[in-house]
């Protein structure tokens, strides 16, 4: 998201999902679209049926990669050189959109000069993608009239995640594939309302609608509405909260001036009166609908930090691993039991209505927050979710025309929607980028935080499977979904398995510098030799005990996709079960 914000000025899908169907070329990077975003995948299938070409960039041979006209199986963590290589070929072949670059972008010469110097042989060494394949992909994408890029966590969950996104944005701008319908750059969001959460300021440095907390005018508007001035400095990032400290970046120790907690724009940083010391520990946490004791990297670090807390409160629909550790649990209503809105990946705000009453003492999130606020001495007297929406429209320009009565009886509205007459915005950046001109950001290869060595010779990639959702707090309660996928499987290339005399279905132990976890082996050609792949849905095999907290310096997204591991048969001589 930060990557699109720096280049385009707006961190969201530039297209609507439907537009993907009409694209001529679709480039999918780091997305297991078929399993993780079937509603997007169906548009890709439809586009293929209409003759569109599909390029997939992924180290794994996923279902969507098998469907692709061209599958670029890059080495994990080499996205930047790969995309730079594509851009160099496009430039060399004179396929760049000069008019678009001239009229709508800035900083092109820096990129051009960098690409002229780029050595394609070096790109081959870094990525493992053969030059002729790279060239085919570049020509396909570069010659398309309308090309869409879809990317997902395979791009962002790296120490260079923000830069990975920036180079994809460069590629789209270089070929003029942004301002128009059926062409753009589309981050696929993993949850029904994660876009909405970001829109509403669930980001360390943002008030709702991406208004920075460092902007005194924005703060003033919210202060007038709330009767309380919001803090002028950014809050902590997720990892800083769950691990009790700022995590390491892949590029070595973070200097204090680089960390976002100490970089609140021009407003003076730690000198602000009342700003807590970023190094001080957090003493109490309220967690809503999140299960960090299964989903965060380096779980042992999270558990240790949670034990140090004075107080932990968790609000969730089931008693998750995290909720089980809480001092207080608020039973929450699920999606069918409450009123409100979800904002999906295509910026579409959709109304949900309560269909059934919540069981037992469960309450909607709104009721929980309002009751808590009341107890803390700040009464919130919202009569309904619709009234909250009115306040959102008042304070958040991009939601300015979105009210419950306009959402009812339709498919919702896509922001930006400036006023009640505005029909919503199917695709972004028409006529001008949100930030004015699109900015080319030059990025160079940044190796992953952990590389393999003699002790840890394999790379672990983590992700999702079709039948479960995230930490399984919902899906593992379903008998049929559990039947479809009941064991924590680890995909291993048959060659790697043979070398360790591991048979399919056998119990294996995976060990990283931070922990060890047991899985059932699944021999699969989906993963290349040297790489194993597992998912984080299973509490009995918490794969995030293995992953690293090394994270992107700007977005603070951890490198879930790469860590170095060793693979052993479980239950051997040194078998020690926890």
């Amino acid at each position, binding site marked *: 998201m930060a990557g699109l914000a720096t280049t385009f000025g707006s961190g969201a899908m530039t297209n609507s999902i439907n537009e993907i169907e009409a694209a001529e070329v679709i480039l999918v990077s780091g997305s297991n679209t078929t399993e993780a975003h079937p509603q997007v995948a169906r548009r890709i299938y439809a586009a293929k049926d209409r003759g569109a070409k599909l390029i997939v960039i992924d180290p794994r041979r996923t279902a969507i990669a098998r469907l692709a006209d061209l599958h670029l199986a890059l080495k994990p963590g080499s996205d930047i050189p790969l995309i730079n290589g594509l851009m160099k070929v496009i430039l060399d072949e004179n396929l760049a959109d000069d008019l678009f670059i001239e009229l709508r972008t800035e900083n092109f010469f820096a990129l051009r000069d960098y690409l002229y110097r780029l050595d394609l042989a070096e790109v081959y060494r870094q990525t493992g993608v053969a030059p002729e394949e790279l060239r085919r992909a570049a020509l396909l994408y570069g010659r398309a009239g309308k090309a869409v890029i879809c990317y997902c966590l395979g791009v962002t969950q790296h120490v260079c995640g923000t830069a990975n996104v920036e180079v994809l944005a460069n590629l789209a701008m270089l070929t003029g594939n942004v301002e128009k319908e059926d062409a753009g750059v589309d981050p696929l969001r993993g949850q029904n309302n994660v876009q909405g959460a970001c829109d509403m300021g669930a980001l360390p440095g943002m008030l709702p609608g991406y208004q920075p907390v460092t902007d005194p005018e924005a703060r003033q508007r919210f202060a007038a509405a709330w009767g309380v001035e919001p803090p002028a400095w950014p809050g902590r990032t997720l990892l800083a909260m769950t691990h009790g400290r700022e995590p390491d970046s892949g590029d070595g120790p973070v200097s204090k001036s680089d960390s976002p907690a100490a970089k609140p724009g021009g407003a003076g940083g730690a000198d602000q009166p009342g700003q807590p010391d970023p190094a001080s520990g957090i003493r109490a946490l309220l967690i809503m609908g999140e299960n960090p004791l299964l989903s965060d990297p380096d779980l042992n670090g999270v558990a240790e930090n949670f034990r140090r807390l004075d107080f932990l409160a968790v609000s969730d629909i089931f008693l998750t691993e995290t909720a089980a550790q809480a001092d207080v649990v608020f039973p929450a209503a699920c999606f069918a039991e409450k009123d409100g809105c979800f904002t999906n990946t295509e910026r579409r705000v959709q109304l949900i209505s309560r269909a059934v009453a919540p069981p037992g003492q469960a309450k909607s999130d709104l009721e929980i927050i309002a009751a808590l606020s009341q107890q803390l001495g700040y009464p919130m007297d919202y009569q309904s979710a619709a009234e909250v929406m009115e306040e959102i429209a008042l304070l958040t320009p991009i939601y300015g025309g979105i009210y419950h009565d306009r959402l009812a009886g339709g498919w919702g509205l896509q922001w930006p929607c400036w006023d009640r007459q505005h029909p919503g915005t199917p695709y972004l950046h028409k006529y001008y980028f949100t930030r004015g001109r699109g900015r080319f950001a030059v990025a160079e290869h940044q190796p992953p935080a952990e590389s393999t060595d003699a002790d840890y010779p394999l790379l672990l990639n983590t992700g999702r499977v079709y039948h479960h959702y995230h930490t399984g707090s919902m899906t593992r309660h379903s008998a049929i979904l559990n039947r479809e*996928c009941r064991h924590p499987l680890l995909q291993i290339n048959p060659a790697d398995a043979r070398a360790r005399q591991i048979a399919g279905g056998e119990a294996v132990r995976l060990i990283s510098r931070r922990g060890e976890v047991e899985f059932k082996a699944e021999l699969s050609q989906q993963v290349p030799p040297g790489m194993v792949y597992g998912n984080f849905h299973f509490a009995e095999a918490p794969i995030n005990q293995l992953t690293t907290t090394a994270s992107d310096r700007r977005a603070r997204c951890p490198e879930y996709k790469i860590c170095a591991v060793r693979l052993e048969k479980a239950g051997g001589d040194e078998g020690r079960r926890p």
Partner: protein
Amino acid sequence: MSDQYLLSRDHLAPLLRRLAKEYRLVAPVRNDHGDTMFQEIANPVATVPDLESQPQNSLKDFLFPQQEHLYDYRLDDAGGYHFQPPATTTPPTLFFGVRPCDLNAVLYLDVVFLPGRRELSYRRRRENSLLIGLNCNQPFADCFCAAVNAGPFLEEGSDLQLTDLGRDFLVEVGRAGGAEIIRRWPHFFRSAPAEERNRRFQLYLEARGGFSRQVHADQAIKRLAADTLPSGVWEELATRCQDCNGCAYLCPTCTCFTIVDQPQDQHHGRRLRLWDACTATGFTAMAGGHNPVQPGKDKLRQRFRHKLELDVKKHGRPSCMGCGRCVGACFGGADILHFINLAGR
């Protein structure tokens, strides 16, 4: 169908109101979100059935519900199970506005669940139901019932069968339940003159010409029977299927189920029957992990062979009714229409 009457369009709502006093009334209703669903109408004055759109669900939801509470169980200390069937009531139900495809689907469910089996809850519901059908003057976008001989007009199987003639509905009396309605409330009906019967035939011919899709189901059925499908059909479908099972759940004739226990506490629980689908990989997986169906290769083979080959052999007709619901719902283009097209390639 022999006896034919006219029911004025103006008298439809009063008739439904009358019938709703005796029966639980289920009909297509357009809800606030613009979706038309078969649902119970508590107040037929306030809620008007939507006869313009195809309901997203079928009568399967009512006769063979997604979740059926089979037993309450108690687990004794020795690990033995003691079962107690739950108390149930089955209100007499009148299904109104049922399209020929869905009505034929109910007749198929009868073939599956009624003969010789101790499927009591289905039998109870079925014996307590009346079906008032409505012929389709204009097929919906994804429909292909004519290609599988399940529509657009119904010749037999309903209690009363309606045809929209404009100002009136032509009412044909089918089974005994329909004759009973005519006998008890004769003042709603007047006998139909011959020219109105002829208009029915005219409308039927027009409806047959109104399909937007050309579907050669016969050819797919023949090729399946002769085992002469073009090569690669199953593989292509398997690549496209995204495992959602939506086709099977929406299908008015899919009857696969699974049985699960839902513990309430250590000693008590409920045994449930849930819809299942042969498209799910786990449906055929065995305890040791072996699966006779290779998901990557032929996971849709069972579904289409059952509908278009085995049921043709067994019952003389395919168990696809051409309602087109799976066509609209399928994520990846692995629906039965796609199969029929591939099979005819």
